[in-house]
């Protein structure tokens, strides 16, 4: 392993076109929690200084100082976290869609894009927190006025940070809390010289988190296999016929729950709307419509499902009977024989 660093700053800018939901979600994490990381309770990682405006002690220019210093390469290694869709500032004349602090000379707002231009090339790693920053997300839907996009669309999909790391996308709308903290933790171990290059798939997502489909991890998948479907939202069964895109979506939420194993999406009755995917939301709207392919595979599976349910019913009946020798008569019929071999 390469030599690691002793201290790392996390510069979190939520001034993309954002709802700040990924920051809020990050505070829901418990595996590990943000305070455990910041207070140095996790062994083996560098000392972490977090700069996130929702939690920061400082206000205004005080708070902005570290960002200005980073722009001048004065603060040592930092992880740049971007939250929110990246706007297209080429289409709005003199105006601006988003900003973060002001230019001390002109007093005009500094756009998020200007910050990205200056900070990304100097960052040890760049992370896109949430689907908006990763792929454009909700604000990029058809008919949108801002022309927004994801970070890789803006910086280029072959962007590499100073440490040679591609943009790390942690999609989710919002991020599943522990997904984000685990990813951050990998990067911190990597910064300390203890982890190899973070494994990312072709959409720049951590492979151990996004390498399987919702359906492959959903606890309602058994209903699908038995061809037993929900026809409306009152039902606890598989929801592919009423809007769930699980079979084709890369996400682990049904598998790990939303927080501490509680909640989720289709596993608890909420159709998967594919919020981790680059095609979100357009390819999946209207969300309550039956996805194409659901009818086809549901119909194909029906004969198998009906048969296998019947067979399982037979075996289940047998399994639900206690053996004959459990009784209260005055004779032992368990086949007891001390010389048996």
């Amino acid at each position, binding site marked *: 392993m390469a030599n690691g660093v002793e201290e790392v700053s996390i510069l979190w800018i939520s*001034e993309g*076109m954002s*709802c700040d*939901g990924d920051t*809020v*979600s990050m*505070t*829901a994490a418990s595996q590990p*929690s943000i*305070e455990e990381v*910041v*207070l140095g309770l996790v062994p083996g990682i560098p000392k972490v200084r*977090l*700069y*996130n*405006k929702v*939690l*920061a*002690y*400082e*206000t*205004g220019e*005080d*708070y902005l100082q570290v960002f200005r210093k980073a722009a001048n390469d004065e603060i040592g290694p930092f992880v740049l976290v971007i939250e929110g*869709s990246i706007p297209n500032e080429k289409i*709005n*004349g003199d*105006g601006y*869609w*988003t*900003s*973060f*602090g*002001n230019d001390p000379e002109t*007093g*005009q707002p500094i756009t998020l894009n200007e910050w990205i231009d200056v900070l990304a090339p100097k960052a040890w790693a760049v992370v896109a927190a949430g689907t908006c920053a990763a792929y454009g997300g*909700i604000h990029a*839907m058809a*008919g*949108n*006025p*801002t022309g927004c996009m994801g970070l890789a669309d803006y910086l280029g999909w072959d962007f590499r940070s100073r440490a040679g790391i591609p943009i790390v996308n942690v999609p989710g709308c*919002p991020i599943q809390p522990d997904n984000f903290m685990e990813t951050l933790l990998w990067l911190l171990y990597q910064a300390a010289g203890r982890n190899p290059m973070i494994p990312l798939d072709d959409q720049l997502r951590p492979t151990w988190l996004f390498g399987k489909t919702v359906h492959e991890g959903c606890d309602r998948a058994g209903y699908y296999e038995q061809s037993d479907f929900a026809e*409306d*939202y*009152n039902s606890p069964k598989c929801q592919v016929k009423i809007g769930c895109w699980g079979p084709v979506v890369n996400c682990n939420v049904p598998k790990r729950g*939303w*927080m*501490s194993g*509680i*909640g989720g*999406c289709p596993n*608890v*009755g*909420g*159709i998967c*709307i594919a919020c981790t995917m680059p095609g979100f*939301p357009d390819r999946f*709207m*209207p969300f309550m419509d039956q996805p194409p392919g659901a009818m086809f595979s549901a119909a194909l599976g029906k004969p198998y499902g009906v048969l296998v349910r019947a067979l399982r019913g037979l075996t289940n009946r047998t399994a639900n009977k206690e053996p004959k020798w459990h009784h209260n008569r005055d004779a032992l019929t368990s086949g007891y024989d001390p010389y048996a071999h």
Partner: protein
Amino acid sequence: MAMASSAGPGELVEMSWDPVTRIVGNLGIHTKIDFANRRVVECKATSSVFRGYSVFMRGKDPRDAHFITSRICGICGDNHATCSVYAQNMAYGIKTPVMAEWIYNLGEAAEYMFDHSLFQDNLVFVDFCERMVRETNPSLWAKAEKTEAKHADIHGFRTIADIMRAFNPFTGEYYKAALEMSRLTREMFCLMEGRHVHPSTLYPGGVGTVATPQVFTDYLSRLLRFADFAKKAIPLNDDVFDFFYEAMPGYEEVGRRRILLGCWGAFQDPEVVDYRYETMSEWGRRMFVTPGIVVDGELVTTDLVEINLGMRILLGNSYYDDWQNGQVFVSHDPLGNPVDPRHPWNQTTIPKPQRRDLEKGPYSWVMSPRWYDERTGEYLALDTGGGPLARLWVTALANLVDTPFVKATGKSVRICLPKTATLPEMEFEWKVPPWSNTIERDRARAYFIGYATAMAFYFVERAMDCIRRGDVRTFQDFEVPDEAIGVGFHEAVRGVLSHHLVIQKGRIANYHPYPPTPWNASPRDVFGTPGPYEDAVQGLPLFEENGPENFKGIDIMRTVRSFDPCLPCGVHMFLGNGKTLRRTHSPLLGQVGEGA
């Protein structure tokens, strides 16, 4: 870095804080301060994010509206989703199943418990923590060390200074306990609505959450643990705020403005609500947080139809083209009342991005919502007091809410929380205060946490009644009409929330959400009516002991945060028309701190 030299008598010093931290979203505050007389003379606030929901939602399927509008806000998105579902229920003509309404209510109660606690204990209280008080009011700190906390026997902190130490970010005991509670309450939310902040199990017509004994006992077990925390939080908050009044006489003037409060109601009563506009006045009054408007201390209405018809959207100093001669979508409401062209149903959003001009405007991305008072012809700049203040004030005066856990009395609200692990059953009473100011906005937040907790016990009982009857229906099917209108009224955590929806050809023709922050932080409008922040910040007396050289503006920041600003929809406010006398950089205080 030192500031410019101290101001002479009569000179104003310009100071700004951009970005404001410990809020959600993007906000910058620019002020002019008279240090000689220790007052804020002028203030402008600007927010610089535009996303365009009302533009890109047009042409989409109305059933997608709540999934999309949830994304307006990353801390209270579920409030938007719920409000959108209310609007859709009206447009589609749905009467939801009783169990679905209890689940909505339980989810929203968990949201209030979560969000108010996180905001108060991890964001607001950093302005009241040991480190901050030492840096801004050393003599106040000295008093805090000598003052016994009145309710030490309940919350366990002996002196006010002990409480303030516990507020220190990341190291304080109370700060850390609050973060843990914020996760517990979000688990409760996930049990009802799937995931936080953007719910997965909400649909128009009900929920997909499966109603079983398990989901309610899981919720109740956590509620019991949270209620123990809430019962300590209320007296702890009272001790801190009463100390501020006693130790700094005159602090009631900080952030004080005219009493102009709006609350759009929360928590439907499933026995009554049918989502029809024609009966909205009745089911509105039966909500477990009463809707209404208070003007100068008097309750002027509790009628959601009247509230709806009075809404106006004015363009002040904002980056939009006007729509005055544009399409009128709704000329009369379903009861035959005429609807104004400046009503949200008839608004068209045409963004006009441009350079910012702080002196002459326009310089921000917000519109100015106002409420037209027919009795006086005034366009009222209502505020929500951050949410809880308006909710408690209206509910108290309306004298309608009457449950075993929460009861209005006409001048107060009584909140009863049952026995929990470390404390017996306790009753709290929030009384209508003499002022609408910073301290009372913050105090109300603690009491409303108790209110939401108490109502959650009530909702769990009612949900279990359904379980006992075997009534587990949670969803009512429906068809989307080709032409329809709908409106949802709800309380976001920070206050009034409305979603106005127009459907044409089976698709969204118009959709305008109005969250609380545009109301709270609205600018001086075309009639010259000042916005709530202007009232609150302008004229604010300064108690901070620092001079201009190392000024933190703590009293200004406390005031801004008391409104619980949540800016993701874009906010702007302009207060006053001063001349620039001296331009200085915003305060720089020492090195960048450790950790957060």
